[in-house]
């Protein structure tokens, strides 16, 4: 129970495309510890996003089992899955995925409101986190009035709002220039170090990969190899 925060056991994901079956994941076995910074790398189409979606309870595996905190997610109903997504997991997407008609503040408050947090409390918390990501002067801006980097910072703030155990970031810097990307990375590794949250991040960027404790390389839906990065950990 205590040992693994996340555990994948022979996980398969097979997409049905008409008559054709597309196996996106083929028998993944993986354990992620509490407070670990895991990077997932691999070529396009290797199944990285598919794996993230499964871990994030946005989808269920075709075969095999996924455990979150010791519980098989297949045993949860839809509303329990929604609750896990809302409380335990914070998503950061490549496309930022903010609600375009809500301001930065409202976007960050949204996950708290889904958890029935008091409006005034949610507001306070959201402002706090927006301050943390350096956007206190942009809280009333709509996403369209923000730069890409700023939008991604709002997205990170939104992911952090409910104080989740796990941050899932699917190519969070993929749409940003390298300088902004580095800033986003600093933010993510910051929350990992300071709040000891587990961070799982998909990235193609070789430099970013080096910040992780472990790197999982995917190829054609299978784990090709796993690398360990000890020196970074010791430096922190």
């Amino acid at each position, binding site marked *: 129970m205590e040992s693994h925060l996340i555990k994948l056991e022979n996980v398969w994901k097979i997409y049905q495309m008409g008559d054709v079956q597309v196996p996106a994941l083929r028998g993944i076995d993986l354990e992620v510890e509490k407070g670990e910074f895991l990077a997932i790398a691999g070529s396009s189409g290797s199944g990285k996003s598919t794996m993230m979606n499964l871990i*994030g309870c946005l989808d269920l595996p075709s075969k095999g089992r996924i455990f979150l905190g010791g519980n098989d997610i297949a045993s949860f109903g839809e509303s329990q899955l929604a609750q896990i997504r809302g409380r335990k997991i914070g998503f950061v997407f490549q496309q930022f995925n903010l*609600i375009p008609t809500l301001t930065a503040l409202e976007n960050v408050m949204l996950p708290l409101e*889904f958890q029935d947090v008091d409006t005034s409390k949610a507001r306070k918390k959201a402002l706090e986190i927006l301050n943390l990501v350096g956007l206190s002067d942009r809280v009333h801006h709509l996403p369209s009035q923000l730069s890409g980097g700023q939008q991604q910072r709002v997205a990170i703030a939104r992911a952090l709002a409910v104080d989740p155990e796990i941050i899932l970031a699917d190519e969070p810097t993929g749409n940003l220039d390298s300088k902004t990307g580095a800033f986003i990375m600093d933010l993510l590794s910051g929350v990992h170090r300071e709040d000891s949250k587990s961070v799982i991040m998909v990235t193609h960027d070789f430099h970013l990969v080096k910040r992780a404790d472990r790197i999982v390389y995917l190829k054609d839906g299978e784990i090709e190899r796993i690398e360990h990065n000890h020196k970074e950990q010791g430096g922190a």
Partner: protein
Amino acid sequence: MKVRKSLRLAVNILVHSKLRSWLTIIGIVIGIAAVVAIVSIGAGLQQDVESHLGGLGADLITISPGGGRASAGFRGPPGHEQGSTATSTDAENLTKKDVQVLQSVDGVALIQATVSGQGEVYYLGEKASVSIEGVDPLVWKEMTTSELASGRFLGPSDYNVVIVGNSIAENTFKQPLTVNRMITIEDKPFRIVGILQESGGFGGDDRSIIMPIDAARDTLEDVGEEEFDSITIKAANTDDVEQIMEEAEQKLLISRHLTEDTKDFRISSSQSTLETMSDITQTISSFLTAIAAVSLLVGSVGIANTMFTSVLEKTKEIGIMKAIGAKNGDIMMIFLLNSAIVGLVGGLLGIGLGTGISSLLPLLGMGIMGMGGAGMTTVITPLLLIGALLLSMGIGMAAGVIPAYRASKLKPVDALRYE
């Protein structure tokens, strides 16, 4: 998530929705406006009928000649038949004997026998044809619900004096008629002793001249001695009206040597006339309301269509919301409230439009069903407005149920992938 927060999101969606989705509100606006206007007209009709007929008292029963006619509903109010001489010449008139027979009916308080007809009235060189009613002055004073605007009622010893209905006094001649003026009716001089208050469009004595029955007999053509154009009974007790009607009919049939089939008189009560009128106005209103309902239906299909499009456009956002913890119920609530608000806004605009229409209609002076040209009344009650609002909200919600359900059932991964 709490309803209040879902509401905020629903409003947010609405505020940022495109003009296209606002346009579909028009269907609801028109439908609700039509419903409000129609119901207010119907209620107005009802009120007119009730105030002008019901004012005559629920305890009045009228017997008039002309049984060949099946429908008694539109012949005017009891005791105040207008222009009925045209038919009264066809049928056997009512006689003094009939009055005596009716006097023997149980529960009768008063009996009024009248003669009536059209008469040529001259005043200051102008001429007009007016309906004349000859009444027993004392009984009429007891039974009428008309009130005097000026002057006095007819007295027992009066002969060539008249009381003039409000509309005739005010509008028929260039110079208004006033108390103590002399007018000439069928070449005979009459002095005006009283002017009646306006009784409203339907029924009443607005367009009549009332004179003692003896004078009327001498003045009007075609009125035989001992004959009457109508007999009005006032029941001692309102509850006995039905029973009095039945007994009166039986006794009259016997004394006039008639059967049900050869019956040549009609008996109606102000109650039964009121009911007939109510039935008719009810039928008209329900028919019009049905038309309005069709327009509401079309409007709701429009909203449903918009909602489907809106859900489709928001697929990605639904995915995002689900990814950050929205439950199916939250999504359902947001979209349901969204369409309820659309309905509500449509309802509010519709109520505004409908109220506008219904308050303009009386100004157009439209007379409906020959209601004396007094214009139509429209009645808007708070109940109608609340009902219309609830209806529009309900329609909005009903139209949104399926799209909202579809939205709530979207799989988060699929929704997120949607571009």
